[in-house]
């Protein structure tokens, strides 16, 4: 698979692996998150994309406006009852395979807003892969979540199952 990369050896290197591992390896370093800011946490999500924290170091800088081009949804903020069906629909519009990070207390459990308006955790609507605590989590925390998600993707065993 990785042939001739090491120019000095002069011979073709041979690497034995499974198809899953190669595909997972490719997927985990090319996450495309959705441009989808909900509330205060979105400010830190944007900061993570800005020069200081530079999410590009982890291969996840290609924010896309359309859910059809994304495989990562970062739920960055509180989800209201009015927004809930929209979030669900956006998730459904994303092609498989897809992952969700619940960024912040609000999207994880409702955060400071335990009231009539806010859905107490986005996991009531869509499956969540990584939860990030914090109000808002610092950009480093989001980057850590991405690394965690990458580990999770690498562990994915069988291609084709919808996870």
């Amino acid at each position, binding site marked *: 698979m990785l042939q001739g990369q090491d120019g000095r050896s002069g011979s073709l290197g041979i690497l034995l692996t499974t198809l899953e591992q190669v595909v997972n390896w490719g997927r985990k370093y090319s996450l495309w998150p959705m441009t989808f800011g909900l509330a205060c946490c979105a400010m830190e999500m944007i900061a993570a994309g800005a020069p200081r924290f530079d999410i590009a170091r982890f291969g996840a800088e290609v924010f896309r*406006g359309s859910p059809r081009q994304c495989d990562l949804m970062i739920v960055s903020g509180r989800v209201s*009852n009015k*927004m809930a069906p929209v979030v669900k629909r956006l998730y459904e519009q994303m092609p498989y395979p897809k992952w969700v990070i619940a960024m912040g207390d609000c999207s994880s459990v409702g955060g400071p807003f335990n009231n*009539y308006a806010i859905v*107490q955790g986005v996991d009531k609507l869509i499956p969540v892969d990584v939860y990030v605590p914090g109000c808002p989590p610092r950009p480093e925390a989001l980057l850590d979540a991405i690394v965690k998600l990458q580990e999770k993707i690498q562990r994915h065993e069988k291609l084709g199952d919808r996870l």
Partner: protein
Amino acid sequence: MNGSDTTADVLKARFPLAVEGVSTFRSDLVITLKREFLRDVARMLRDDPRLRYNLLLDLTAVDRLKLGITPRFATVYQLYSIPRNQAVRLIVPLPWDGETEMPVCPSVTDIWPTADWLEREVYDLIGIHFEGHPWLRRILMPENWVGHPLRKDYPLGGEPVNFSGDRDNPRFAHLGQQIMEGLSFPSELPPGVDPENHMVINLGPQHPATHGVLRVVAELAGEQIVSAHCDVGYLHSGFEKTGESKRYEKFIPYTDRMDYLSGMNNNLAYVLTVEKLLGVEVPLRAQYVRVILAELQRLGSHLFWLATHAHDVSGTIHSLLMYCLRDREMILDIFEMFCGGRVTVTGMCVGGLRQDIPPAFPEAVKVFLREFRKRFKEYDAMLTRNPIWVARSQGIGYLAPEEAIALGITGPMLRAAGIPLDLRKVQPYSSYDHFEFEVPTATESDCYARYLVRMREMEQSARIIEQAINRLPGGPFRTADRKVVLPPRPELDTSMEAVIHHFKLVTEGYKPPPGDVYGMAENPKGILGFYLVSDGSAIPYRLHIRGPSFVNLQALDTMARGHLLSDLITLIGSVDIVLGEVDR
């Protein structure tokens, strides 16, 4: 004082039967009116040359069920006269026999068009029918919602906190039941929209250029916008109801989360209101530091606006997004040094500051200012004469000054229309009168003028910060009033009195006298107002927020008509909204 006397006198002379009472509390003039006279009085207040209350700042209502006052509901109008720099509050009790679904109040939308959304909000959250409103329907809550959340007999809602995580336990079976079936399309189109002859397209709530979760229903004739109606409420978080269930000081962290780009300014507006209600004086040092923090935050907010606006309007100016966010990080570092928070800061407390500034603070601010000034020149040069930028923003979204006032616009948008209303100048709070600065204005009132005004404002903010940091006075950083702030830790070891104060404050909180106040401050986006009603307990009876973004956004329709669809993005950017504050 003089001016407020006039208002009551003029009103009484003209409508002797209309006035039920006149009172002044904490220098707020409050006039109670009979419902029948509301519209006549409103028109007179606006038009009479001696009064000229041309700006309807705020419109809300109070459910007085638990105060034991009849009638149960009353609407509240906060008026401001720009030429006279005077404010008055009208309270209109609404007689209601409880047999109809909701009490009725005459609408003032034709007198102050800004009342359109404000009345819809009251209808939605409190349940008052405004007679004569052109399109009274829910604005923040989903259409199929049952009940009116801000009524006092409506529970706060939410769910019991599930510490065990055991989802199979039948106790938690109801979790998530509040989630409703979604409607993908509004059941009816806004009035005047003609889907037969025009194309109606939907923008948002997930759209990269709407700065959050705004939805716009645009009616198009070809590429041209016939009308652009906003559908808001996708981020409605129940701030007011939450505030009405917590002690005064516990709401400060929530204010960070409203307009999350201007946490410090929101803190300031809120603590000023509570201080007004309590009658607390704040030491000079705290006032100066508050000014520094608020102006730094204004820079941060404007930088973020510039970054996203430039990015939306022209994808080629992407580098500016990166530059501005880099500079904003420097401001966030200063905040972090001061209070540990970056975005949600909770930097101020009632009575002063939570803690004094650290020793390295002044130097960090000075370094920032030096860097900022240098870089700001570059940004200015990049955009101000950039032909693409000028072509895309000049002449777009004209708003006549009278129109702007009628729509209740405040902040840079109003100043770009040539009206120099800046509360920091006309009603200086927190020692703003100690500093020299100008209020930048423009007359073109288009997107380009708004851009220029904000750019010049950034320069002025830097000027204010510099003066404040150079002349920073010594002394305490919060009031010595032990009824409001905790005693310093060492005092607890030596003084029994301090222990008692500490205990009372922590267990009970402070109890302001009964009454209502309106407090406001000049935020980066416009005038942020808080209306507080105290019943004498430690929890506000009514807490209402006037979000400048909410009111300013109403102008989008007026500004967009006749322009091209692509200009809509420029327009949304030039209003400078934060959806957390629009939807609250």
